[in-house]
């Protein structure tokens, strides 16, 4: 979808090029994060794709068309663009801001209105905001509008330059998750610049790690980069906790869960006692068919078994779609050293440190 071939940017007067003969292929629907230390040319690379910065060498093709062969403004109308400073137009309402590219493309008013109303909803803002001016919105809200504006004419390609860099960490987390959900629906081809390796890992289907001068050190999926860093530079850049970061990519459903000490609520006292002593523990999980009711302590059992005993809820309960990193956190934080996995009320199994450790070493 996007193909960079030997692309260079050499600023006049600079001793070394900002980007030196960089080649990069981005497939349709891929979410590529460009990451690296400052001065690595990641932003320059991104801005050469829509020619905010004109390359001094090489070729850039978008959907098979040479980007340098058409007027820059025409090229840009087919590429969504989001920047860290957002850059909403202060003198235009939110609706007018979102309608920017459709307006430039000459859509008729009713189509623009319908599209604007649809987009404000897509990015999770209220329709009432459409008539406000950017200054009346919070930073997080403004960046949502920035994303809506970039999506307005439904461009196949989105370029994003640290779009969530200026908002506080909590809002950033929200925006990242929401944007990922949105991307799963839209399937855009995204090139995303960030200096935050965790953000790159969380969002990217592939990560391009750049070194000073736009040298591509490694270009691969987050899993491969974390488990097989190409060289020392990549290893350094990934920083510590590589194993933990990898766990953050793996869903719980990928792990081999253990069945755990469980008994149906209709089970007898003897059966419960036997399961507990087999496992060497003093508690047992209680099921109602497939539904998890909770757990009971050995001392709470009465002569007839579980009847009349109110099971207590598990402290750590996770969905199979949560990551193993979240599971690890739950296990370490929780008292029981285990976490139960429940999907839509149905008990799936449980995991402990051993289960997680196995995934790390795999």
């Amino acid at each position, binding site marked *: 979808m996007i193909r960079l071939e030997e692309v260079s940017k050499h600023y006049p007067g600079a001793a070394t090029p900002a980007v030196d003969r960089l080649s990069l292929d981005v497939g349709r629907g891929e979410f590529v994060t460009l990451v690296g230390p400052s001065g690595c040319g990641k932003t320059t690379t991104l801005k050469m794709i829509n020619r905010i910065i004109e390359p001094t060498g090489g070729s850039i093709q978008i959907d098979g068309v040479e980007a340098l062969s058409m007027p820059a403004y025409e090229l*840009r109308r087919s590429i969504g*663009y989001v920047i860290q400073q957002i*850059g909403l*137009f*202060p*003198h235009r309402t939110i609706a007018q801001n979102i309608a920017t*590219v459709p307006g430039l493309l000459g859509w008729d008013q009713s189509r623009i209105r319908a599209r604007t109303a649809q987009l404000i909803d897509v990015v999770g803002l209220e329709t009432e905001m459409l008539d406000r001016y950017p*200054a009346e919105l919070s930073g997080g809200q403004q960046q949502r509008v920035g994303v809506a504006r970039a999506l307005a004419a439904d461009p196949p390609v989105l370029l994003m330059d640290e779009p969530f860099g200026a908002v506080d960490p909590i809002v950033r987390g929200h925006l990242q998750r929401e944007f990922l959900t949105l991307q799963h629906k839209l399937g855009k081809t995204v090139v995303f610049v960030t200096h935050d390796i965790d953000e790159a890992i969380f969002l990217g289907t592939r990560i391009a790690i750049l070194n000073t001068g736009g040298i591509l050190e490694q270009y691969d999926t987050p899993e491969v980069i974390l488990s097989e860093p190409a060289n020392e530079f990549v290893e350094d850049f990934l920083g510590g906790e590589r194993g933990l970061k990898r766990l953050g990519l793996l869903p719980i459903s990928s792990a081999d869960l253990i069945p755990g000490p469980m008994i149906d609520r209709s089970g007898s006292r003897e059966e419960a006692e036997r399961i507990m002593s087999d496992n060497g523990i003093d508690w047992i999980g209680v099921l109602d068919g497939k539904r998890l009711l909770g757990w009971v302590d050995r001392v709470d059992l009465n002569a007839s078994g579980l009847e009349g005993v109110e099971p207590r809820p598990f402290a750590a309960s996770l969905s199979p779609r949560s990551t193993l990193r979240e599971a690890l956190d739950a296990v370490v934080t929780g008292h029981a050293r285990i976490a139960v996995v429940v999907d839509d009320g149905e008990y799936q199994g449980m995991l402990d440190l051993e289960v997680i450790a196995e995934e790390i070493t795999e």
Partner: protein
Amino acid sequence: MNSVLGQSAPLIDWSWVERNMDQIVDRTWEHLKLTGISVGLGLLISVGLTIFVLRWRWAYPSITGFTGLLYTIPSLALFALLVPFTGLSDTTAIIALTSYTLFILIRNIVAGIDGVPEEVKEAADGMGYTRRARFWKMEVPLALPVIIAGMRIATVTTVGLVTVTAVIGLGGYGFFILRGLNTFFWTQLIVGVVLSVVLATILDVLFIAVQRVLSPWAKANT
């Protein structure tokens, strides 16, 4: 005849005001005309010079230097200097008054355009604006509050300076001020001064209103 020491006479002789209403109206038009033409002409020249400056930035210091120099010439002297060339005419007044507006207007227009945030320009480029469309649809509207602020200062200053043109037989309300001073007839002096101030205030408020209408997104910086 009233005299300086004639304390018993009232400060304002309202019957004079009634008798001279026609003249007051005439002088109002004169005052408005001189102010309007000078500020209008000043704006046109300043816009022209700004377009030049935006293209050839190196010219900016010379232009502000020159207009700044004009600005420092005492108005009385400037009128006197021009009279041998253009006589006791509107032209003399307008040349001088216009030259005083340039310094204020150019600086405000350039500052307004320069003040458009980089990220707004980059976003406009990124959305696919042409260079020309970006200038007219983004930079000019965003500079408007600062430009209008400059026009307010230029206008209020010009309303004041118009009174000085009384020395070359014009003056708008300045005519009354000068004659009042010469004849010690306070009613004329007071009428001239008060109406000048009122006119300046009305025009200033008018500009604030215009700014609110044209730039509803910006708070009027009063």
